[in-house]
């Protein structure tokens, strides 16, 4: 579903992403660990078409992103670290607006369902986003992804700045999506959360995917991952 073939990005002499090969199947969560500047966000940007790869291919549902920038986005959803939204609109209006941009017109009940599934209380849906906390905005972001019913989900440090309860709720939603067969690529610094949800964990350094750990039966211990992470970087 999420497929990178020899994906490379140079900025002048600097290599931001070095021959990345990656294949994430439906119903699989792949977590990317690594320091800032290791290439996690560049990887995601390549899949979103925001960065033109120097060589190699990024494929979503078999579609080359560089070649089909609009079509490939029909199959993906994206959750950034900070979901800003439009502060003068309510949560519901924001969701409606972003869904329409994706070309889907949902009924109000469907939109509200997405929001409650994402963990936002119904009364909050009618309040303006300017009054929201970061966690609440993040929930609208998840609702946007849910409403799109995408088969591939990209998450860029989605749990940073969330309180433990919100973070836990969020992880549960990811697990639910995994059961629904969504392929997910998540860049994160949170080793514990990664251990909880990931099928595989990749560690990046200087644009290269150095280590890939199998966590399919949730058999890894956080301590092991942390040690390996520290050795790698």
């Amino acid at each position: 579903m999420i497929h990178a073939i020899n994906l490379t990005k140079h900025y002048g002499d600097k290599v931001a992403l070095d021959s990345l090969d990656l294949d994430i199947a439906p119903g699989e969560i792949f977590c990317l660990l690594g320091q800032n500047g290791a290439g996690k966000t560049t990887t995601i940007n390549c899949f979103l078409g925001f960065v033109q790869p120097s060589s190699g291919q990024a494929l979503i549902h078999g579609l080359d992103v560089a070649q089909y920038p609009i079509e490939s986005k029909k199959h993906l959803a994206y959750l950034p670290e900070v979901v800003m939204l439009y502060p003068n609109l309510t949560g519901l209006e924001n969701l409606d607006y972003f869904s329409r941009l994706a070309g889907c017109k949902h009924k109000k009940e469907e939109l509200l369902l997405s929001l409650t599934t994402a963990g936002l209380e119904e009364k909050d849906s009618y309040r303006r986003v300017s009054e929201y906390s970061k966690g609440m905005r993040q929930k609208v972001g998840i609702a946007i992804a849910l409403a799109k019913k995408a088969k591939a989900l990209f998450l860029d440090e989605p749990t940073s700045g969330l309180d433990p309860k919100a973070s836990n709720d969020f992880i549960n939603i990811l697990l639910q999506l995994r059961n629904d067969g969504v392929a997910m690529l998540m860049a994160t610094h949170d080793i514990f959360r990664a251990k909880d949800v990931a099928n595989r964990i990749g560690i990046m350094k200087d644009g290269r995917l150095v280590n890939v750990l199998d966590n399919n039966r949730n058999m890894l211990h956080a301590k092991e991952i942390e040690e390996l992470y520290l050795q790698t970087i």
Partner: protein
Amino acid sequence: MLRERRLQIAALLLSGLFLLSLFGAYDYYASLKKQHEEATATARDQWENQEEKNPHSAAHYGTYVFKPIYPLSYFDRGVDAFTGNTLFLEGHRSNQAKHRGAEDRSSFARLGVLTPAFVLAMLFPLFIIVLGFGSVAAERENGNLRLLLAQGVHPTALFWGKSLGMWSVVLVLSAPFFIAGASGLLVAGAGGEHWLRYLLTVLLYLAYFGCFIHLTLLLSAATGTPNASLVASLGVWVLVCLIAPKAAVNVAKQLYPTPSAQDYKNSLKEDLEKGVDGHDATDEFTKKLEAETLKKYGVDSVQHLPFNWDGFIMQKGEEHETYVFQKHKQRLLDVYEKQQWVHRAAAIISPYMLTNAISQRLAGTDVVSYFDFLAAAERYRVKLVGELNEDLTKNFKYGDWDGKRGKAFFAQNTKFEYSLPALDSVMPGLASSALAMLTWLLVSGLAAVFFFNKIRPV
């Protein structure tokens, strides 16, 4: 967007300004219109009821004509404030217009008068910039753009959406004023053609707004940050609305300098002396004409001519003077014409200048309309003085300077009638400017779409 505080304040400010300008302008128009009607009536009254006198003395007595105040001039006053609208007509000379509005004002007037046209053309673009400078740049900065584009919206659709959003605010805000302008026209009791002019004016300003909407969106998409976008947009505004018009005037004057008033008078005087002077019997040209005329009629003195020699020689002098004035004015007009040409050419780089030019022409307050009025007034002067001299020639005896004419005669003298040149005659001259305006609208739109398609949210 309407919930945004910044826009609420800007909209309020602009509304106040606009209503003020509309009120002030209409008040000005109404009072000037009244003044004009009264003055026209008074001038004619003075002419008809002047003391009984010899017809040629009446030519010296002279009369006033006034440039009509058109209904749309309250909307766009154009150059009226600077050119003056009162002309004194008399025998032997062709005068300059007097009573310039700008003369009784401080130097503040040079900034431009607070007419609706000024607010729409000069200040409204600032509102558009405030409205739109962040439309892409701010969303790039806060990350919304990433989410937006990840949703799979086509960049061109994004452009249409953004411009539609801006249009809705621009229309909501400008519509009441266009309606207010129309009610001004209603109160003025303007005829059908003025409504057509007004409709074209409204369309013109909408196209002008469109240009600024496109430019603002273009710069918002092309620059990285809201700050850069704001600075770039304001830079374009300064260039288009302030620098380009001033530069055009200066370049035009450099290329085709206007002769100084002193030079103009001197060369005029020189040429005037090279012909018949009706008031100087010793003048060599007069003597030559006298000899020729006597020979033609086979008589030995002017007393025996079948017409009044005094009237004849006055008219001959008038004709010469008119010819000389025409020649020199034409020379001046040619210079102005060339300067105008430079303005028109320069206007291509500035939608502000294009808008001004078209708007003033539609309102009948531009330089060309002014010259048209001057030409009509001069034709009238020649005709009136001709009538007076003809009367002197045919109906008075030679040397009869005591013979007088009274009200019965003066009342049947030709009247000055001038109205706005028909729209049909104005339209062809506007075609190239209108075309340039549409090109601006289209090209800026295409350029904006191009830059929207190049947007990278990182």
